[in-house]
């Protein structure tokens, strides 16, 4: 039966209940062809769940979905695909061992003569073409995706999704691991898909992005739809109020810094293939931002300082004494902590509880003669869970069942518990909602206030500028600039990072 | 004149003799003893090289082993087939290579062999059967523990031989449902369950001594040693000891793998020397009971 409204996609009374948690409590959502429809909301609001239902990745408990006025039963990804719905999911969904070509054409390899005989040359051409279409060249389609950096992998996922020009394209936090220029490419792509017309559902926690690209914005909260607005009707603060129910006076809280002794001194450090001649120092109570384009070597630097990768040259002084961690263990024992950039890969044990993950780095401190003191453990973990407002707050819940943002908070909790003197944060707010961001920033300041030396690695320029006492800039494995808080401006830092004067 | 036999060549110091000792399995003392016996006998001559293989109970591996030793150019082969029923491929390969083959203990069906030396398992069973019938006076309850698996005709022969006698009496025969795998722990476990199930048992027959020893332990642990006696097969030294000590281990049928091995070796040497011995030789396997056990007990034999 044709709907009274023109909206191409209609989701009615969608209810989803994971064992225990009410992810969606009757959401009515609709969007039209040819629009970019942004979905925003707190961590755990139900954004991913909603679009995973639309993409056939999970099953709704109740509700109906209408496409073009026809009720459709989207009971599997295949079905969704046949209906022209493709998604880039929040979770990594590539096959690492397979080539870029195969991942892009996964499940739709071109065949010759018979329907099962793969035509490899054609496949590679097709993949190459698809990448070309989305303005993303310069990677070898014959190399396994495992060889690509995280951001390149993300572009492959996008290419996969647009491969057969879908009617509905879902992007769940695509920008989290993308660099500026790649983000520009993505937006260009979105705009010309829009013209076809295509419906683009865009989930992100970066509101400036949302305002830039979206035609309409829908806000979810606690599994319910708060409202749908036009970008020009509202400003950021109003939107934030819709999302988290209160307004944030300022996202980057100010603080009066008193900088103490240098804690970490790095002297022309090098790691073959990633960076060289990196020298800087980090003082107690200081927040130093490390900015750079994706692939500039920041993560590798952090991993070296943390003993996760061998140092091939130069030296590090920790509180005056030479410091050469041979393993993360050395670093942790020496009071250095690293919050890694990819929580799934090397931050969390998915099948373990919040309690286990949060206390993983401090087990020795929570035990006597190797026997855990459960009371102490629970108390400390609970405290962190409350401070970070992790939802749901039961510490016995499996981390796998948490939403992306809440998982990130668990990783943070782990390192906050470790009470390190040097805290290296690699993309700490990746996939975290604004409210939580502000919360994390507050905590960073608090730690700095307590005299912790903090190295803040981030690809989000506002974050770097807003938080840092000093800003370091890396380009192609070299430290190319240092700015005091006063000197650091969007233009200067970006120019430096991109290498244009 | 006629080509010199390998032994003649050897005597004239032209070359050493190579023989292959192909075992289906060296899992347990019985077969180890047989293989060892051949090696020991060979050691007496300075110029005999024995190539020993173990197929770990895998018929295909055994066929391969035979191919390998043939490739090595042996003058003769001794096959200890264990429970293996037949191995046409192996025997045919040997025939093609034109070397003599002596089967010890196990007479492989289907395929030509030069000579066989071994026990008559059926007869051994019959002996035990008679002993049981006599001692029970033809009535009571008998539990039978088999080694398995069902394609192991050594066990079948022994059990059938025993049954052929016992079934004529009105002794109640109870077959343990599971197989004991020819080992102590197997026998122990089976017996445990049978003891749990039947509160009155008069005699136990096992297809070999290992299982019987296990069963005896189970009975002792259940405190029912007085109630029943056991009969085994093989003449394993631990069993002989138990019989000598006058326990409820009543009898076993001698099946001396050491003797079989040595006989097999000499049979092969005779053939290599040009002799034409009788095709099949059944070694006597007398019943061993407390009266005659001391004659057979050798504390430091392998088996």
């Amino acid at each position, binding site marked *: 039966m044709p709907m009274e409204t023109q909206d191409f996609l209609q989701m009615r009374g969608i209810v989803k209940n994971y064992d225990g948690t009410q992810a969606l409590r009757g959401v009515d959502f609709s969007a039209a062809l040819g629009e970019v429809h942004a979905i925003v909301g707190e961590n755990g609001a139900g954004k991913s769940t909603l679009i995973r239902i639309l993409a056939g990745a999970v099953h709704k408990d109740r509700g109906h979905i*209408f496409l073009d006025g026809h009720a459709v039963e989207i009971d599997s990804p295949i079905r969704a695909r046949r209906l022209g719905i493709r998604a880039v999911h929040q979770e990594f969904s590539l096959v690492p061992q397979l080539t870029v070509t195969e991942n892009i054409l996964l499940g739709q390899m071109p065949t010759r003569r018979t329907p099962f005989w793969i035509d490899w040359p054609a496949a590679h051409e097709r993949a190459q073409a698809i990448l070309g279409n989305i303005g993303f060249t310069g990677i070898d389609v014959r190399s396994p995706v495992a060889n690509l950096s995280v951001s390149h992998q993300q572009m492959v996922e996008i290419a996969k999704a647009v491969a057969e020009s879908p009617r509905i394209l879902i992007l769940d936090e695509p920008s989290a691991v993308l660099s500026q220029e790649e983000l520009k490419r993505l937006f260009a792509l979105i705009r010309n898909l829009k013209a076809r017309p295509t419906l683009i559902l865009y989930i992100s926690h970066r509101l400036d992005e949302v305002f830039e690209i979206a035609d309409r914005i829908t806000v979810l909260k606690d599994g319910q739809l708060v409202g749908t607005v036009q970008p020009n009707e509202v400003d950021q603060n109003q939107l934030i109020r819709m999302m988290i129910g209160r307004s944030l006076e300022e996202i980057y809280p100010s603080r009066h810094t008193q900088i103490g002794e240098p804690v970490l001194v790095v002297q022309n450090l090098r790691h073959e293939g990633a960076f060289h001649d990196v020298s800087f120092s980090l003082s107690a109570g200081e927040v130093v931002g490390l900015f750079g384009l994706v692939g500039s070597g920041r993560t590798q630097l952090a991993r070296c300082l943390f003993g996760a990768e061998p140092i091939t040259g130069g030296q590090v002084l920790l509180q005056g004494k030479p410091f050469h961690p041979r393993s993360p263990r050395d*670093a942790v024992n020496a009071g250095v902590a690293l919050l890694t950039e990819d929580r799934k890969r090397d931050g969390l*044990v998915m099948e*373990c509880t919040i309690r286990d993950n949060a206390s993983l780095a401090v087990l020795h401190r929570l*035990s006597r003669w*190797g026997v855990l003191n459960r009371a102490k453990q629970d108390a400390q973990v609970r405290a962190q869970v409350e401070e970070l407002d992790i939802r749901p707050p039961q510490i016995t819940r499996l981390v796998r069942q948490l939403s992306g943002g809440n998982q990130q908070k668990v990783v943070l909790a782990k390192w906050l518990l470790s009470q390190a003197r040097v805290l290296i944060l690699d993309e700490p707010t990746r996939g975290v909602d604004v409210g939580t961001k502000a919360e994390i920033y507050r905590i960073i300041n608090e730690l700095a206030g307590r005299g912790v030396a903090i190295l803040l690695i981030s690809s989000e320029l506002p974050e770097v500028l807003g938080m840092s006492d000093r800003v370091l800039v890396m380009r192609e494995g070299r430290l190319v600039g240092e700015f005091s808080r006063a000197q650091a401006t969007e233009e200067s830092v970006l120019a430096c990072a991109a290498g244009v004067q | 004149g006629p080509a010199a036999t390998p032994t003649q060549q050897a005597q004239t110091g032209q070359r050493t003799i190579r023989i292959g000792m192909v075992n289906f399995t060296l899992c347990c003392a019985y077969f180890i003893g047989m293989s060892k016996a051949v090696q020991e006998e060979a050691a007496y001559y300075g110029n005999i090289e024995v190539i020993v293989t173990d197929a770990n109970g895998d018929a295909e591996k055994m066929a391969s082993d035979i191919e390998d030793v043939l490739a090595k150019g042996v003058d003769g082969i001794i096959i200890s087939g264990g429970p293996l029923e037949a191995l046409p491929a192996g025997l045919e390969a040997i025939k093609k290579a034109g070397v003599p083959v002596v089967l010890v203990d196990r007479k492989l069906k289907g395929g030509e062999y030069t000579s066989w030396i071994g026990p008559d398992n059926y007869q051994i069973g019959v002996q035990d059967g008679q002993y049981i019938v006599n001692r029970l006076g033809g009535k009571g309850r008998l539990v039978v523990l088999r080694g398995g698996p069902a394609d192991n005709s050594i066990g079948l022969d022994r059990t059938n031989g025993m049954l052929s006698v016992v079934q004529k009496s009105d002794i109640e025969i109870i077959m343990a*449902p599971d197989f004991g795998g020819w080992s102590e722990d197997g026998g122990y476990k089976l017996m445990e369950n049978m003891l749990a199930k039947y509160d009155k048992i008069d005699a136990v027959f096992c297809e070999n001594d290992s299982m019987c020893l*296990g069963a005896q332990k189970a009975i002792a642990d259940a405190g029912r040693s007085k109630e029943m006696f056991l009969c085994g097969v093989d003449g394993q030294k*631990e069993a002989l000891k138990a019989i000598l000590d006058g326990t409820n281990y009543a009898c076993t049928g001698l099946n001396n793998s050491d003797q079989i091995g040595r006989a097999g070796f000499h049979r092969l040497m005779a053939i290599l020397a040009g002799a034409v011995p009788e095709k099949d030789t059944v070694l006597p396997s007398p019943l061993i009971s407390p009266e005659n056990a001391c004659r057979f007990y050798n504390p430091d034999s392998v088996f």
Partner: protein
Amino acid sequence: MMDQDPKVETTEQFPRQKVLQIGRLLRPMSRRRWVDYSFMAAFVLLLLIAASVSDVFFTQRNVSNLMRQTVTNGLISLGMLVVILSGGIDLSVGSVVALSAILVSGTQQRLPLGLAMLIALGAGVLVGLLNGFLISRFKLAPFIVTLATLGAVRGTVYVYSEVPRVPSNPIFRSVLGGSVGPVPFAALVMAVCFVLVWFFLNRTTAGRAVIAIGGNEEAARLAGIHVSGHILLAYAISGFFAATAGVLLAARLGIAQPSVGAGYELDAIAACVIGGAVLGGGSGGVVGTFGGVLTLGLIDNLLNLFNVQTYYQQIFKGLIILFAVLARRKE
């Protein structure tokens, strides 16, 4: 208009069963609890059938048999569980059982009992350490490493003694092989070990570390956990329990064959998986494993009591294992 069934677009039908399946997989809450109940139910059912059909099942004799028969697999499974949780697998346990059994029997003729047992257990731990070293140091697949040691250790056993060894020390059999009241001594040992391992896994830093490593090794490493050390520990534990099983087996049988223990690894793994452990690490528990061990023990025991002929036993056993994991399966 929301309540009435909307007409479903019928182009490109999709196999119904797949739909149901996904539906079932994602069915909300209570599912997990239901799973555990159903497992328990299946188990209790087994017992009831046993009791009703076989008069002897609940006799004190049979129960203590059951206990004695579960000891070996129980101990091995404990070690196996720890290894599985660490993300590995240990195929060498069967050979280790033989090794320690023959060592404790062979050495006690010359040495004092205590020392003999120490040697046997030590040997087991040594094999475990070797496994752990090769796996953690060279990053080799546990499956293949322990498969290699399985063969190597078995060979060593035969090299040490190709004939069965009889434990000479009378105390050895009477105590370790005996019973305390109706309860076999070995069963008591097993019970204690289960408690110990439960404690190890849930209440010690090492235990949690092992589990974390199995769940995500990189994350554990980056949290400052000494990965290779804990992997070493896991395999050492497995070796230790396998050796303990061997010693108790020798004591129970009063004789140790070099061929004993072949194939035990599969039973142990089966027990762990029936108990909910996931090969590849991360999840699994002591209680579940105990359930698995008991289930397997019961199967054997019952099939014998009911006089089920061997081959049908194998078939039934397979089916019951399937039934157990089906009842126990998680989303």
